[in-house]
Structures are given as structure tokens and as C-alpha cells.
């Protein structure tokens, strides 16, 4: 008769643990450890990113003064907006920032999330490329801030949960002991 023996006690314990977890001699332990992996995995996997909701253009009937005001003849009118991530109710960027402190433009009117500026005669125009560059950098900055915040939060939540699990294990040891 062949008698199986393990070479080292640690291997013996490892095989026993694997047996408990995988073959289910102690069914509860198997479920418990499985749940430890399944439950957090719901939160670790990346969520689908939703596209930002673009706010509809202003309604002239609600903001008549904004639409009535016109730039002087020969001046170019610009309407800029403060963009928000509506789903998260977070500030995204303020493209009016490009015109606010620009000596070539002057403020004309504002309504809700939009402002109207006029390009002074002979003034240097802010090009579309510059506006797009500003938007892109602002969005990248916003995304970086969100990512950092989420990373900190995730670290906090999982550290706290992990520490609590270890302490629960200690309580279990004292209970069983």
C-alpha cells in the first residue's frame, strides 16, 4: 500500500487550503472567500463613460434682453458658454474666460450659461483653433482631477474595507479559540 506524504508542512497546509477552497470540504469558507472577490469586482471594473449632455441653446422668449442687445456695426459678436457635465452636475470649463480679460473684446450681455461679447473694431480676434485648444486643455484638466479624486476615493474605500476584514478575522479567531 502506497502512503502519500508531503515533503514540507507548508506545502501540506497549502494543499489543504486549496482543497478547502476549491473542492469545498468546508462549503461556507469557499463561498466566503469567493464573495470577497466577487463583491469588490463589481466596483473595480471600469464603468461605461457617458457622453456629456450638451445644454440646448437659449430660448429667445425666455431671455429677450440677451437676444435684443447687438454689437455696434462693424463689430463681431461672440457668444460663449460655461459648460457643465450635466450628469454629474460638475463644472467643466468656462470658454468665456477667453474673452473676459481680453482687451480686444467687451462684454455685452449674459443669460443663464451664456455671455455675449463684441470684438472691438480693429481688435485681434480669438480664433476657433484657440477656443478648441482651450476647451481641450480644460477638459483634460477636468478629467485628470476626476481621475485623481476617484483614485484617492477608491484607495480609501478598499483600505478601510480591507482593514475591517482583517479585524473581523481577528474577532473570529478569538470566537473560535
Amino acid at each position, binding site marked *: 500500500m502506497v502512503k502519500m506524504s508531503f515533503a514540507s508542512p507548508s506545502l501540506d497546509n497549502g494543499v489543504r487550503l486549496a482543497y478547502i477552497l476549491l473542492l469545498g470540504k468546508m462549503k461556507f469558507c469557499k463561498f466566503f472567500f469567493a464573495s470577497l472577490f466577487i463583491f469588490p469586482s463589481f466596483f473595480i471594473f471600469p464603468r461605461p463613460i457617458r457622453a456629456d449632455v450638451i445644454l440646448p441653446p437659449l430660448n429667445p422668449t425666455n431671455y429677450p434682453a440677451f437676444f435684443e442687445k447687438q454689437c455696434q456695426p462693424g463689430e463681431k459678436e461672440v457668444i460663449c458658454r460655461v459648460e457643465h457635465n450635466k450628469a454629474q452636475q460638475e463644472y467643466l470649463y468656462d470658454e468665456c474666460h477667453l474673452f473676459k480679460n481680453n482687451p480686444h473684446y467687451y462684454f455685452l450681455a449674459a443669460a443663464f450659461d451664456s455671455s455675449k461679447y463684441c470684438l472691438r473694431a480693429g481688435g485681434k480676434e480669438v480664433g476657433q483653433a484657440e477656443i478648441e485648444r482651450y476647451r481641450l486643455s480644460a477638459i483634460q484638466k477636468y478629467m485628470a482631477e476626476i481621475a485623481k479624486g476617484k483614485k484617492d*476615493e477608491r484607495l*480609501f474605500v478598499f483600505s478601510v474595507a480591507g482593514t475591517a476584514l482583517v479585524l473581523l478575522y481577528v474577532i473570529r479567531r478569538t470566537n473560535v479559540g
Partner: protein
Amino acid sequence: MWVNYYLWPLLITVIVELVIAFPFGFKKVKEFLAIVLVNIVTNPLLNFAFRMIAARNYFAFLLASEILVIVFEYFLLVFTFPQRSRKRLLALSLVMNLVTSVLSLFPILFGLDFGLIFR
């Protein structure tokens, strides 16, 4: 600060669940501590999920997450107190989480704008 989003719900949930655990025979300090720790595991994880996942159907998401929490807390309780009756622990997990989730609906139903407090 986002930490407040986790601390207040956790604190209120722990208080409510400790009160519920008392009639279930959880009277020792060690047992109370275990209830607190079980909530420290599940409550921040659940609040994290609510912050990260923009659910289309809020109540369906709440229901699914509550079921998950009941099961997970049951496992944690059985793990911590293997000598106790599993039926009793399941009942405890069920009652604790049902009460806190019903209470969590009050701010929403009454239009108070401080989101979910209990979970």
C-alpha cells in the same frame, strides 16, 4: 469633501444596526464591534458604487445592491460568529438592511436633498 459622503451614512447606519442587533442577542462589546466592522466593509463599498455608477433606474440599482449587501453581510456574520445559528444571522442581516434601506428612502420620498443616508 468626499470623505463626509462616507462617514455620515456609515455612522447613522451603524447606530441603527446596533440597536437592531441588540434584540438578536448581540450584547457583548466584541459582538457590537463585529457589527460595526461588517458595516465598515459594506457601507463605504456601497456608497462608492453609488457615487461611481450613474444608474439609470435608481430604485432597481438600490434593490440589487441591498440584496447583495444582505448576502455579503450574512457571509461576514457567519464567518465571524461560526458558532451562532445561521438562520438567526440571516434574519439579522435581513432585518438590519431592510430597516436601513427603508429609512434611506425617507429623504428621497420627502424631497430632502441629502441623498441616501442609510444603506
